[in-house]
């Protein structure tokens, strides 16, 4: 087992006492496995990634367990996390322009983790940086070692970010919306590159995205998050086949589809994402759900197994499965 996250809680300090940003998130990733995390702003996707990286905001409290290669990460101090980050666990961010240092040449930025974690000297680190740039298929890699980030295109900068992430052959790669800032044709190349590298190195990949299409093409299993917890999980094909949770179904139906034609109304999810500070005691989606009954508001629904490895936090999966449509719109936000 590469990564085992068990009942992860994160609470953040706020003006009126702590708020629960993550409410018992559990999942595992094996070596060579790709797992997707999907959901909208404020659902806890990025908070999960930050907890794994030991980059939670000041004052945040983490509880539960995160084991990477058998080692417990919750409660680890900064120095110990620094030794892991960029070494055993690496991350690719959404915006490569802000994630790279504009004042340093890219060769130096790729060499940094090699010198820090693997103790290579300057010459060896530079040679390895060149090999990495070639591996991420950056054209004219040797010349680009001395380029500054602003001299590269968005896609090229993201390739540099990937090279940095791969430098120390991490066990786990986290990619947080890695292609959201890129054009579609470049997005396709970058996703293919990530998939290829993950397969070659036998890394685990945690891909965070809001795009259902990206998920469908890239990951083997996926988790759908809402209100700080995982509300549906399963093999990607099964999740798309059943859209078992009303929120998953709402997300899918809200997306304009190519070939759908003009003028039709898009299905919307009534209301809006609840504030983490005032999450209801029961199902966080209850206020927006067309299938809601009284019991939904009483307690957080348990994860019900509805297929092999496919589970949903909803107390009415049969009622939802029996319906082929999303209930009519309520008031829009």
């Amino acid at each position, binding site marked *: 087992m590469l990564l085992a996250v068990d009942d992860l809680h994160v609470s953040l300090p706020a003006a009126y006492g702590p708020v629960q940003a993550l409410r018992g998130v559990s999942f595992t990733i094996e070596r060579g496995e790709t797992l997707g995390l999907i959901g909208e702003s404020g659902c806890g996707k990025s908070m999960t990634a930050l907890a794994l990286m030991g980059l939670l905001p000041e004052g945040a409290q983490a509880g539960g367990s995160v084991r990477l290669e058998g080692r417990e990460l919750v409660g680890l101090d900064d120095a110990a996390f620094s030794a892991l980050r960029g070494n055993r666990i690496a991350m690719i961010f959404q915006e490569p322009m802000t994630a790279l240092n504009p004042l340093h040449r890219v060769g130096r930025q790729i060499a940094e983790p090699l010198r820090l974690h693997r103790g290579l000297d300057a010459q060896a680190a530079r040679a390895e940086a060149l090999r990495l740039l070639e591996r991420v298929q950056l054209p004219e890699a040797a010349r680009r070692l001395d380029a500054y980030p602003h001299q590269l295109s968005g896609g090229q900068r993201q390739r540099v970010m990937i090279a940095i992430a791969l430098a120390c052959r991490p066990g786990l790669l986290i990619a947080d919306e890695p292609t959201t800032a890129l054009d579609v*044709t470049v997005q396709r190349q970058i996703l293919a590159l990530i998939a290829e590298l993950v397969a070659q190195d036998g890394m685990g990949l945690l891909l965070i995205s809001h795009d259902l299409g990206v998920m469908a093409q890239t990951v083997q299993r996926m988790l759908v998050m809402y209100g700080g917890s995982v509300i549906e999980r399963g093999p990607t094909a099964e999740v798309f086949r059943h859209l078992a949770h009303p929120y998953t179904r709402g*997300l*899918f139906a809200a997306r304009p589809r190519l070939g759908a034609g003009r003028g039709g109304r898009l299905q919307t999810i009534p209301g809006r994402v609840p504030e983490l500070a005032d999450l209801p005691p029961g199902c966080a989606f209850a206020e927006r759900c067309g299938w809601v009954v009284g019991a939904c508001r009483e307690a957080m629904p348990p994860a019900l197994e509805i297929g092999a490895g496919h589970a949903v936090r909803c107390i009415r999966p049969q009622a939802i499965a029996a319906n082929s449509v999303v209930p009519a719109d309520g008031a829009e936000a």
Partner: protein
Amino acid sequence: MTLLLEVEHLSQAYTLPRESLRRPAPVVQALDDISFTMQSGRSLGIVGESGSGKSTLARLVMALERPSRGTVRLLGQDLHTLSPKALRAARAQFQMVFQDPYGSLDPRQTVQRIVAEPLATAGTAERSMQRRRVAESLEAVGLRAADAARYPHQFSGGQRQRIAIARALITRPALIVADEPVSALDVSVQAQVLNLLADLQRDFGVTYLFISHDLAVVEHVCEELLVMQRGRIVERGAAQQILRQAEHPYTRALLAAVPEPPQSSVVQ
């Protein structure tokens, strides 16, 4: 159907910083001899990748900068030859909605002032009139008249984009130029805003010049489509037709690259 917008031989070149004292500063041709027309009631989508010239085109149509060559005529008026005063008055006919609902609203102004600004620019200064029009505009986009007293930070991203749309709508323009108006929004909020744009087209007769990198979004809003690459138009025509049977290899490459989730039997 009336002729809304005529763009003829529009070119725009930008001079880049000099790289060497011995060579002239490099010039990038952001737009290269673009011509097209728009009829009222037929919204036009413009797609293309970064650097294709989409946003430059939007700025020129909005008369926010002067082209190197060519003309932009809105309802017969050449926008780039108008005096500053005449241009301010003409702006009532064309308004813009920007991509980022966080950056495009002044955080220190009330929603009342933000939404009323185009009216004030066009010369409608009377307070009670402005208040009434702001209330109408906010209600048209699904907000409440009472929201006029609040500040942008009190709203979510989707609501802010509604405020930006209310501001664009308040002068009852014939044309709204929308540059990636939903790409910063979550999927479920994006659907609400796209439905709103369709309602406004039906109820107020506005026509959109809609810039987006997302072909499915463009297909949802626009009758006509124009595909740009490196400052030139590579394909144009009825949106449905192009998306079904693209002629140009670049359009086909764009279409092929769109990641689509599998069709689901449980929804629609």
